């Protein structure tokens, strides 16, 4: 066997190892979930699917979930697309504020967003009571209205960012070409820009739909009487522990199916109009003045203010005196923070340890996997590619249930350990890490590595000497993003965690459930700081382009 065959084989064996790891921790749990939904192990002998079709509660949950997904996708598009267009094409007073929008979604975890909206508009909320005191009745925030409003303001930034990038990359010459051919400016924009920007809008819309369908925190806290799939799945899981996991896996399979159908529809729509989009020079923003400028600035300001509301409320809530569930607005105290930092810091410590380990492992694994995917393609890499992207289509609840079902006992018993929480974190953030590292690697031409090899440095050392240094800034930026999204993770960790291993989001969720908003806010403020500090340090001290990495 010659030496080249050996080096080829090193990559093959590494690919095989990666494939096995992914197979065990992603595919095997998924198959477990899907398979046990067909089991007929219940006392009455019906399979999960028979029960699902027989009980209206479950069917309502499915239709409610799809409906909520569609409505929120629509509302976020209606806010996100115009906002992106206006930001890309115009200059108006106060525009700089809009630039911080992506940050708000990132630094305010969903559970805190839901909580703070409740603190304002819930039955005991500040706004509800103030307006009520003036004799203005405020409709209940629980149910559809709360779900739609909160999810809209959490998720519209995804549409905004996706569309903004597409409009900025849109070659203005195409628009000018259309105008030169006699199309009116508005018409030209619609005719030429829309088809080019549409794939980006569709992709981010699908992302939002997936996130809404999988959303656990907002759905549970605000859903109330509206049955939703993720809530019912979680409740079934909690009540089925120790019993046959039939219903939880059936419900989990349904949510997988909904996302799969959405993915399929998106692929179908995009494949009908396949064209190459060449990124060109985007148009320069145009100044606008007078009444239109005020109208624009006003509308943008409303969006920004609403987006910042959770942040402001969590800070206020953390420093507000509370007696049990009653917030005494206007009376300030540091007792809440003292309590969470000194008396009960366990959730903070747990979060730091678990997320720290998960982030480090995630960076190492996704860098390695991406290197195989981009630079060392072989017969196994397409399978690795699919498996690594699979968690995108799975909600946190589904991933959590799959892990508990698969590693509850037997050869690898992880239930009750910290390892299963770290594993849940890793799996949920894997597609993100891999996509990030891959795009960096695609931008590093093969010739650089080959130049090093041609100068006499063996392949592996060449990678370390010339490729890795070029990846470091991107890896660091990805690290910050993986960290921020991992410390905020709730839906998978709440399924797999065990007593004493509460993380911050889990603890906040439990406190909200008990109505202890002040303490929840205090933990929330700690969580936001844990998220915000690395971002601030990375962008100001190390000048990393974190949002460019996304």
């Amino acid at each position, binding site marked *: 066997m010659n030496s*080249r065959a050996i080096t080829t084989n090193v990559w093959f064996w590494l690919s095989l190892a990666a494939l096995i790891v992914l197979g065990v921790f992603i595919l095997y749990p998924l198959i477990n979930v899907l398979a046990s939904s067909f089991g007929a192990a219940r006392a009455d002998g019906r399979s999960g699917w028979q029960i699902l079709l027989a009980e209206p509660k479950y069917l309502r949950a499915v239709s409610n979930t799809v409906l909520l997904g569609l409505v929120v996708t629509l509302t976020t598009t209606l806010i996100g697309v115009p906002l992106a267009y206006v930001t890309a094409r115009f200059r108006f007073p106060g525009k700089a504020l809009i630039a911080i929008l992506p940050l708000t979604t990132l630094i305010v975890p969903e559970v805190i967003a839901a909580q703070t909206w409740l603190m304002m508009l819930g039955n005991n909320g500040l706004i509800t009571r103030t307006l009520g005191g003036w004799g203005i009745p405020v409709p209940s925030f629980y149910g559809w209205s709360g779900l739609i409003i909160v999810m809209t303001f959490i998720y519209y930034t995804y549409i905004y960012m996706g569309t903004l990038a597409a409009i900025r990359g849109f070659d203005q010459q195409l628009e000018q070409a259309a105008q030169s051919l006699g199309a009116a400016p508005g018409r030209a924009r619609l005719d030429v820009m829309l088809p080019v920007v549409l794939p980006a809008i569709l992709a981010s819309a699908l992302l939002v739909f997936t996130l809404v369908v999988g959303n656990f925190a907002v759905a549970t806290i605000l859903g109330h009487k509206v049955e939703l799939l993720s809530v019912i799945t979680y409740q079934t899981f909690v009540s089925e522990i120790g019993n046959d996991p039939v219903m939880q896996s059936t419900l989990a399979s349904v949510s997988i199916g909904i996302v799969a159908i959405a993915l399929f529809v998106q692929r179908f729509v995009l494949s009908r109009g396949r064209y190459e989009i060449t990124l060109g020079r985007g148009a320069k923003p145009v100044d606008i003045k007078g009444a239109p400028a005020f109208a624009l600035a006003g509308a943008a300001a409303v969006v920004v203010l609403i987006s910042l509301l959770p942040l402001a409320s969590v800070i206020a809530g953390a420093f507000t005196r509370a007696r049990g569930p009653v917030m005494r607005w206007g009376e300030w105290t540091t007792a809440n923070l003292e309590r969470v930092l000194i008396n009960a810091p366990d959730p903070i410590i747990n979060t730091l340890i678990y997320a720290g380990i998960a982030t480090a492992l995630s960076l190492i694994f996704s860098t390695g996997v991406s290197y195989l995917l981009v630079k060392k393609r072989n017969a196994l890499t397409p399978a690795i590619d699919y498996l690594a992207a699979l968690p995108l289509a799975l909600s946190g609840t589904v991933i959590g249930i799959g892990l508990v079902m698969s590693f509850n006992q037997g050869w690898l018993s992880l239930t009750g350990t910290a390892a299963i929480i770290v594993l849940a974190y890793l799996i949920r953030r894997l597609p993100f890490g891999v996509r990030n590292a891959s795009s960096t690697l695609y931008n590093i031409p093969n010739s650089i590595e*080959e130049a090093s090899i041609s*100068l006499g440095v063996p392949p592996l050392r060449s990678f370390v000497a010339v490729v890795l240094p070029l990846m470091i800034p991107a890896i660091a930026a990805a690290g910050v993003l993986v960290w921020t999204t991992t410390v905020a993770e709730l839906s998978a960790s709440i399924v797999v965690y065990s007593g004493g291993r509460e993380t911050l989001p889990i603890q906040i969720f439990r406190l909200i459930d008990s109505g202890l908003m002040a303490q929840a806010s205090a933990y929330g403020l700690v969580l936001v700081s844990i998220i915000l500090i690395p971002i601030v340090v990375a962008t100001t001290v190390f000048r990393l382009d974190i949002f460019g990495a996304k």
Partner: protein
Amino acid sequence: MGGISIEDVSVSYAGNRVIERLSLTIPNGSFFTLLGPSGCGKTTLLRMLAGFLPVESGRIRFGETDVTETPPHRRDIGMVFQDYALFPDKTVFDNVAYGLRARKRDEATIRRKTGEYLERVGLSGFEARRPAELSGGQRQRVALARALVIAPRLLLMDEPLSNLDAKLRVQVRETIHDLQRESAITTVFVTHDQEEALALSDAIGLMRAGKIEQMGPPGEIYAAPVSSYVADFVGAANVVAIRLAGGVEAGGLARFRLANQDIAARAVSWLNEGEAWLLARPEDILLLPTGSGSGLAATILRRQYLGSRTHYRVRLGDDGPVLTVECTGADHARFAPGESVEAVLEPARTLVAPR
């Protein structure tokens, strides 16, 4: 003795046979160019010499050493890439010193040699810069110095000039030419640009679909192409379908009719009677005013004045083939469109190739 030899080599890429049983010897110290259109296999052949692509069958020898199984980092090659492939995070000095450091030379030697080669490519004083602070031409000079400073057994260049604009291309081309002649390092140069190939090479291998169609010094490739493909690729050529009345031996004069007139041309190889190609370079056709009596009757269709020369499109006879003719010298633009002229195709400079 010595030289680079490729013996009966086949290469497949993604299931396709890209190089088919190719053999080739490149003498020590010579500058060899692989010329051909994209997809002809020239880059594949180069990457195979570097060791980045495995051969399916056959041997590769650098002198007496069989390197067929040797991985690239042990082949002692220098490589210059189309996109320069400089290490963007390293300074110019560190880029050039990279190969010497890999060879564990002592620091004093590294300093001396790196300085020497940077001076040779005209980049003394640029040591501390990073690639992003250099122009395209400067970057390619750094890449050249980096590949040459290790005094490789074989220098490989993959379209190193194609990312440069026309003026820089000529400058860097001269640098490459001078450095290679000075160092006498055996060089394989890949390009699709015939002018580069003609200007730089000791020998050119013109490739077509994974095979070498013709190999020889630039003058031979240009003046004596073996086929219409070579004639058309190296320098423009008028290629006209003709019918031979009888067979001709190689180098002999073939006689045939063109636009209802008798004409003769040199056969590039042994030809049977029947269909053949007539090859005539635009600059080898002479245009004379009507009545000179020595050429074929023709009409000017179009004229393009290019300053130092004029290009004409000329129809032979009334409905014969249309040829491109390049005229230089005094009064090269004297014929007007619509004018009747005579076109002289001199038998010695006009070729007939098999179809």
